[in-house]
Every structure is written in structure tokens, then in C-alpha cells.
């Protein structure tokens, strides 16, 4: 499938990839039903890559695409993000400011506030339109901050009233000579928030990435990540390669030079699939098609593929051998301490595939996981990136593998089914429930924590620290009341309501 960069609106994940947000079964069954292996489930009609999805009447607040635009386009250091919306969408400025500041500090970059401007749409604007206010806000962005790019995040409100964001953006881009980039991310348009990653990357590809690069930087690797600590620079330096971190905390120039790089990698295919595939399709920057770099087999294969593409096989083999020798004794020390423990992973989709592998490497039992959505295929459509297949093949099946867009009410039943000693999470809203059941969480704010060879050691250490937290959680568990009915808490099937709706 060709990614269409000609129109300003990105195709949603469900349109491109057949993304689902409700499913329950074994990991191997989901891998089988996904396009990488078979195509379709046989019961859903002719459209390929269709997996039968569970949909129920009860849903709790999820996350929207606009939030993912905020946390990407809003965290570029020399750009401004305009939120063309009523003030409520601007609430997200608070969290993404805090994450941005801490991310900058962690990466050793100057700490500063985010630069977000809300157009502050009100009732009058719903009737007469908000484009004038959009123009005022864009001008304010230029006058106040002299940015090298201005992004515009649309909203449910601006989408429904049909504001012509494109024309305003074009006119002001021409006037200021700096990219003004509309990102169409109305929350209602996609059932999963990861479409917001794609919307941001789509806008960057269309209006920032240099179209006809005059030079190639043959030792430069685009690394699609978030705010994590800098683990890629030392790792890629072993292969004589330099890192170009995108999108968070990068500069507009770092984004522009993506087309000059040798290859693109990512810590998570959920995040990076669109950008990496488009860079290869339109600019010939190769996407590394390998398992994600988690655990020994994943990291080995990932490094070897990167080395093959960049012609650095000897250095890679040398590095792999040294790291194996360094890390294996450390893991041998950790494994007895972790023996008999059971973990549960509740994170973004592809990221979870990687983390489960790491847990099994260090001897932790995993028989359950919740992923917030599932992409039956990534944009590359290359089976070497089949992260779920890689997990099942290398580490075996996961008995209770669940897809759900972060529904806390189901999480109770999921945990009862598995009864883990700890959980690993990334998004908010689930750990507080687990905590009240006496289960400690490891929040992976630093997404690179478990990556590569050292990541296995890191995660093991974090588990041991988190287990001590159990004292707190077990104490609180005796003293709280949950907002769920006893009849629901007694329910063994987390999807009982969905199945009743179908029946």
C-alpha cells in the first residue's frame, strides 16, 4: 500500500492498517489472525486484514488523536503548536509541559516551557467560524517566538463547524516564509489515538522534511522516539553511526534532515511505522526491517539488520559479542532473585511485544498482557517487523492477551485472571487501580529503560525495587473501596458486556 502524502489529512489507522481496540484471546491466535500471517479471520467479509473486534456498551474515557499531536508536534523545541479549539483541549498543555521539561532535563537539554497557543474558540465562533481567531493566534506565534515552524492541531469543534484551516495556514505560510502545518486530528475521527502520531508525522513529511536533499549523511540514523534517555548515541557509536532523534525535543532542522539520513529506526513500531515507511517510500531512507530491539534475539537481529543496511557488519558482530559477554553474567545474577515472579504488561501495542520478551529473558513469568490497540500490520507490510509474531516465535505464547483502549473497569477482571506480582505500564489510569489491589506498578516514563542488552538488566533492577513498594500497596488495598459493583468485580470475563451485546 502506498502512503498518500498528497492530501493534508492522514488516513486513520483503522483505514490503513485495520486497527482494532477490543479483542481477547491468546497472543498466538491474534498473531495468526493478523495480516502478517494470514490476511483475514474468515468471518468478517472480504476486506483483508480484518480482525473480529469486541465492542461493548460500556466505555470509559479513552485518549484522542489530538493529545498525541500535542505530545509530538508540541514538543519540538523551536516550533509553536496552535490548538484550534475551545480552551478545554488546551488542558493537555499541563501534562505535556511537565513531561517535556523532565524529558529535556533527562536528555541534558535546556529546560523550558512548551509553546502552545489555544485559539480559545467560544460559542460565537461555533456560529460564525473561528478562522479569524486562528489567524490571530498564528500571528501571535510568529511575533512572540519567531518559530521555525508552526503546527495547527484541529479539534472536534473546529472539524464539526468546518473551519477552513488549510487556507489560513497557506496564506500565513506565504506571508512569513515559515512552514505553517495543519494537522488534522479531530478526536472523533479515529477510534485510536495513535492516529495522532501519524497525523503529526504526515504534516512533518509534507511540509518540513527536505524534498530534494542536496547531500546524504551516510552515517546518520533517524531514531523515532519520545523523551527517553539517550541510549542510542553510545549504541550506534559502536557502529560508527550518529543519531538523529525525532520527533520529541528535536529541532525543525533535525526533522528537515531526516531525508538525508541513511536509515530510520524506532523503539516502537506503533509510534514509528508511518514516518519510517514514508521516509523510505518518498526519500529512499531505508527503514530497518527487523524485530524491535528488546531481549537477545530482538536486539541481535535489529543490530545485524542495521549493520547490513549501513555496511557495518564486522563492528556489529564485535559489539554484539561484547555485550552478550558483559550482560549475561549480570542476568545470571538477577534471574534467581526474579524467579517465581509473575509480571503483567499494560502498554502500547508494539511496545508490549518487546517488554514481554524482556521479562521472559530475565525469567519472569508472563501469562497476561493488555495492549491499548492492535495493528494487524504495520505500514511497511514487511513480515520482518511482525513484532507480535517475533514474540510468539521466540518466547512462546501469552495465554491472556487482551486488546482494549485503556478501560479501567476491565483491568480489574484482567488482573484477577492473572494475579501478577507487579505490572508494567506506560499510560495513566490503570496503575492506580492495580495499586488499590495491592499490586505495584513500574511506570516506564523513560521508554528506553528496557531497550537493548542493558535494558534487560535495567528492567530486572526496577522490578526488584518495585516489589519493595508492595508494602505500601498492600496497606492501601485493605482500606479502599472501589467504584465498581460487586457483581461486576465477580465477573470472570472482562468482555462479558461486549459478548452480551453481540448475543
Amino acid at each position, binding site marked *: 500500500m502506498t502512503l498518500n502524502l498528497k492530501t493534508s489529512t492522514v488516513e486513520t489507522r483503522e483505514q490503513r492498517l485495520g486497527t482494532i481496540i477490543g479483542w481477547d484471546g491468546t497472543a498466538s491466535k491474534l498473531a495468526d489472525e493478523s495480516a502478517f500471517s494470514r490476511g483475514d479471520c474468515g468471518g468478517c467479509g472480504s476486506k483483508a486484514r480484518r480482525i473480529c473486534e469486541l465492542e461493548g456498551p460500556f466505555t470509559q474515557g479513552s485518549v484522542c488523536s489530538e493529545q498525541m499531536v500535542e505530545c509530538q508536534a508540541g514538543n519540538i523545541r523551536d516550533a509553536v503548536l496552535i490548538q484550534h479549539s475551545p480552551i478545554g483541549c488546551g488542558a493537555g498543555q499541563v501534562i505535556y509541559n511537565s513531561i517535556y521539561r523532565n524529558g529535556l532535563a533527562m536528555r541534558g537539554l535546556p529546560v523550558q516551557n512548551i509553546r502552545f497557543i*489555544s485559539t480559545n474558540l467560544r460559542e460565537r465562533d461555533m456560529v460564525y467560524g473561528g478562522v479569524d481567531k486562528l489567524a490571530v493566534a498564528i500571528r501571535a506565534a510568529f511575533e512572540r517566538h519567531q518559530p521555525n515552524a508552526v503546527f495547527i492541531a484541529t479539534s472536534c469543534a473546529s472539524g464539526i463547524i468546518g473551519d477552513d484551516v488549510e487556507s489560513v495556514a497557506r496564506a500565513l505560510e506565504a506571508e512569513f516564509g515559515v512552514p505553517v502545518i495543519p494537522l488534522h486530528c479531530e478526536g472523533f475521527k479515529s477510534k485510536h489515538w495513535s492516529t495522532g502520531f501519524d497525523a503529526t508525522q504526515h504534516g512533518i513529511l509534507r511540509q518540513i522534511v527536505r524534498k530534494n536533499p542536496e547531500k546524504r549523511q551516510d552515517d546518520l540514523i533517524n531514531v523515532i522516539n519520545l523523551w527517553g534517555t539517550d541510549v542510542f548515541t553510545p549504541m550506534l557509536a559502536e557502529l560508527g553511526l550518529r543519531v538523529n532523534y525525532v520527533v520529541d525535543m528535536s529541532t525543525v532542522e533535525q526533522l528537515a534532515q531526516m531525508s538525508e539520513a541513511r536509515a530510520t529506526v524506532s523503539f516502537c513500531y506503533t509510534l514509528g511505522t508511518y514516518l519510517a515507511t514514508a521516509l523510505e517510500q518518498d526519500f529512499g531512507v531505508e527503514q530497518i526491517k527487523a524485530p524491535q530491539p528488546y531481549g537477545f534475539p530482538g536486539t541481535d537481529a535489529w543490530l545485524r539488520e542495521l549493520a547490513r543496511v549501513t555496511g557495518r557488519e564486522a563492528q556489529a558482530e564485535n559489539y554484539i559479542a561484547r555485550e552478550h559477554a558483559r550482560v549475561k553474567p549480570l542476568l545470571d545474577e538477577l534471574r534467581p532473585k526474579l524467579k517465581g515472579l509473575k509480571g503483567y504488561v499494560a502498554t502500547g501495542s508494539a511496545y508490549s511485544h518487546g517488554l514481554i520478551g524482556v521479562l521472559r529473558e530475565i525469567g519472569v513469568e508472563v501469562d497476561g498482557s493488555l495492549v491499548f490497540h492492535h495493528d494487524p500490520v504495520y505500514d511497511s507490510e514487511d513480515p520482518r517487523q511482525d513484532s507480535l509474531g517475533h514474540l510468539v516465535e521466540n518466547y512462546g505464547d501469552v495465554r491472556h492477551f487482551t486488546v482494549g483502549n485503556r478501560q479501567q473497569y476491565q483491568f480489574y477482571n484482567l488482573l484477577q485472571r492473572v494475579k501478577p506480582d507487579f505490572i508494567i505500564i506506560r499510560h495513566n489510569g490503570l496503575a492506580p487501580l492495580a495499586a488499590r489491589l495491592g499490586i505495584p506498578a513500574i511506570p516506564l516514563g523513560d521508554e528506553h529503560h528496557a531497550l537493548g542488552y542493558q535494558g534487560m538488566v535495567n528492567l530486572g533492577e526496577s522490578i526488584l525495587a518495585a516489589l519493595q513498594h508492595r508494602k505500601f500497596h498492600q496497606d492501601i488495598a485493605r482500606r479502599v473501596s472501589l467504584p465498581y459493583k460487586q457483581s461486576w468485580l465477580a465477573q470472570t470475563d472482562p468482555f462479558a458486556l461486549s459478548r452480551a451485546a453481540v448475543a
Partner: protein
Amino acid sequence: MAILALKSRPTEITPDADKSGPIELVRYVCAIGAMQSAAAIPRVVPITHCGPGCADKQYMNLAFYNGFQGSGYGGGPVVPSTNASQREVIFGGADRLRELIESSQTVLDADLFVVLTGCIPDLVGDDVGSVVRDFQKKGVPIVYAETGGFRGNNFTGHEAVTRAIIEQYLGPWDGVREQGLVNLWSLLPYQNTFWRGDLEEIKRLLESIGLKVNVLFGPDSAGLSEWRDIPRAQFNLVLSPWLGLATAKLLEERYDQPFLHLPVLPIGARQSGEFLRQVAAFAGLPAEPVEQVIVREETRYYNYIDGFTDFYSEYWWGLPARFAVIGDSAYNLALTKFLVTQLGLIPAKQIVTEDPPVEHRDSIREQFRAIDHDVSVEIDFIEDSYLIHDAIRKADFGHKPPIIFGTTWERDLVKEMKGSLIEVGFPASYEVVLSRSYVGYRGALSLLERIYSTVVSHSA
């Protein structure tokens, strides 16, 4: 051009551009943020009819990255949401809402559900009232409020939720008033980072002079039984510059219930004593026992202040003289009053940021003009942080480093000005707040500790 409004509106909408400009770095959220006001009532669960991100945005920013308060029994990630999609935008979302309300009763253990609408149903015109009324007729404890983000902020949303519960949940009433029972309408839950501890201290003060308090929100509230008791109270106490006045007036109309409006939240002995005397007089309590309470509180308070005096009088390395407050009118007024009248600090700039309704602005200005017998303050109403920071940079802080009472947004600014920052309002992302309070007798002491620990710890 005439516009046919579907529902009655407070003002005519005209094509003239309104004066609300862009807002950089927000200091309040939208009306549906009042889902956390509903969640602030024990065992009440909000149900949101809105896009998939609205509920998450409001609570993560109001309740998490603002003092890390926690989102409450029925708030935050518990909140049901229709997560409205393309289908609800095109075909309407009433059926989806009905389905969600029904299933919410299956899953959630709540005393009352409060349905709040977002931009999507308010724009496509879902008849949410009729959906909710069907459930009300069946005896389901449920009310609804229209809180689409373009209609207002979380302050007006809070008033809408309060009004919804009073009008739709409380019936007519013709019982006997209970003397000494008071309904308290004060700080906006969650928006004000310290609301829990503050309401606890205010309740403690009122109880100390023999009143019974329906505190209505927060851990010190008994929940809906207090709300059902609202009409029985002797009077309503509005303790804030303007928030709660509309509710008090509604209750006056509906139940012929009087109210006392005190714009200044008391901080420190002077204000707290005055507060207790004013409330006691309105409630018709005899003066003598109240004076005894004040003496007892002041004895404890001034004992600690006596110790603090050693520090305040001879700390070698200089203490700030001029201060600015950037925040909601309630805390801004309360802090300015305390800092000016009790500590003798000089107000350099006071900026009110919550966009108070126009009709209340003059009375807020008057309060600041009368801050002390020898000090009068002219305030600004600004919501855009870029303009706010500009105004702070231009303010005269004299020769000493300033002390700024503000939010996380001021962290860079204060570094640039080499001053001290006390995060006292939304968003306070670098404060962890449990029961800490800055009001009353006890809160004032915590505030002094916070202010001067910050200043002293910066010094070397």
C-alpha cells in the same frame, strides 16, 4: 443576521468578534472539567458524553499534574465516556448515551450520576435532556449539565453541575430550617490545588463556633445526604469573590434561603478572627463563646508566630519585600490580603486569571483597592500567559529579588528574574499536595513555612 438559538442563552450572540484572544499556557480548563466537581462529591460518578480524549485531558491536568491530588472515587479513569466517534457526529449520539447510562448502572456503584456534555453533542444538537429525563422518570439518580467546551470554563461548568443537582435532584422543600446549619460554597475543587485541606480548615473553624457545615465537596463531605440537606440549612455561606454566588441566588429564589457573601478566604489570625465574627453575627450566635474560640486559636497561632519572629527579624541574607500573585481571584485576594496586612509585604503586581464573569469584575477590583488602610492595589484580568509574563517583567520589584505566587508556568520566568516561586494554583506540576492547606489559622502557618523554606533554600 438573526440566529435562532435552540436553547435560551444569557446573551445574544452577534457576529462581532468577541474580545477573547488566544491563550498561551492555560490557567483553567473547559466547562466539562467540572466532571471533577461531580467526582469531588463522595460516591458521585460523572458520565461524559464527548470525544474520546476529553475526560482524560480534564482529569490528568486538573487532578494529576496539579498537585498530584488523585482523581477521587468516581473521577479520572473511572469516568464513563461515550468516546463519540464519526457515527455520533453524523447520526447523533443520543442512543449511544442511553446505552452508556444503562451499562454504567450495571458496572458502577454510585449514589448519583451526573451527565456532562462536551463540544460534540452540544454542536450536533443531541437532546441529552430527554435521554436523562427518561432515566429520572424510572427513578435512576441522575442529572445532566450542558458543559460543551465552547460554552465556558470549569468555573462556569462547576456552577452548571451544582445547578443541575439542585434543580434536578433536590425536590421542593417546606420543612423546618435547622438553626446553625450552613452550606459552604467556596473554592473550585481540583482547580484549586489545596481545596481539600482548605475546606477541612474552614469547616473546622465554622464548627469551632458551634455551626454545623454542609461542606458538600471533598473528603470532609458526607456526600449526597449533605446535598439533600441543603434546603434545611439556616443559610448559605459564599466564601469566594464570585464563584458560588449564582448558586446562592438560585437557592434564595428556590427555597427562600438567605446567604452571606464573604469574598476573602481568611488566611492568618486577623482575617480568620474577622471571618468568624462576621459569620457568627450573620448566624445570630452570641459573641462571647466566639471570642473565646478566637482567643484559643490566636494563642496557638501567635505562639508559633513568636518563634517565626526570630527568623523574620534577623535573618541575615535578606528576605523578599515585593511580591506578585498570578492566580484565580479567590486565592489571589486571600494571599494578597495576608501578605500585605500580616507580613507587611508590598504588592507589585496582582493578576487575576480565571476570566471572572464581567458582572463580578468591579466588585473584585474594589476588594483589592481596599486591601489595607494604607495599601490599595489595581489588578489586571489576564488569561494569556505570554501577556501575564510580560506584565510581571515590567512590574517594579525594587532592588530585591521578587517572590512570585503563581503556577508551573512561572518556573522559567522566575529563574530569569532570579526570584522565588511558590506554586499556589493550577497548574502546580511540581508540588505534591495531600492535606496541605494555606487558609485559616493552621494554613497560614503552613504557608509561612512554604514561603520561607523556598526563599532560604535558594540562598546557598
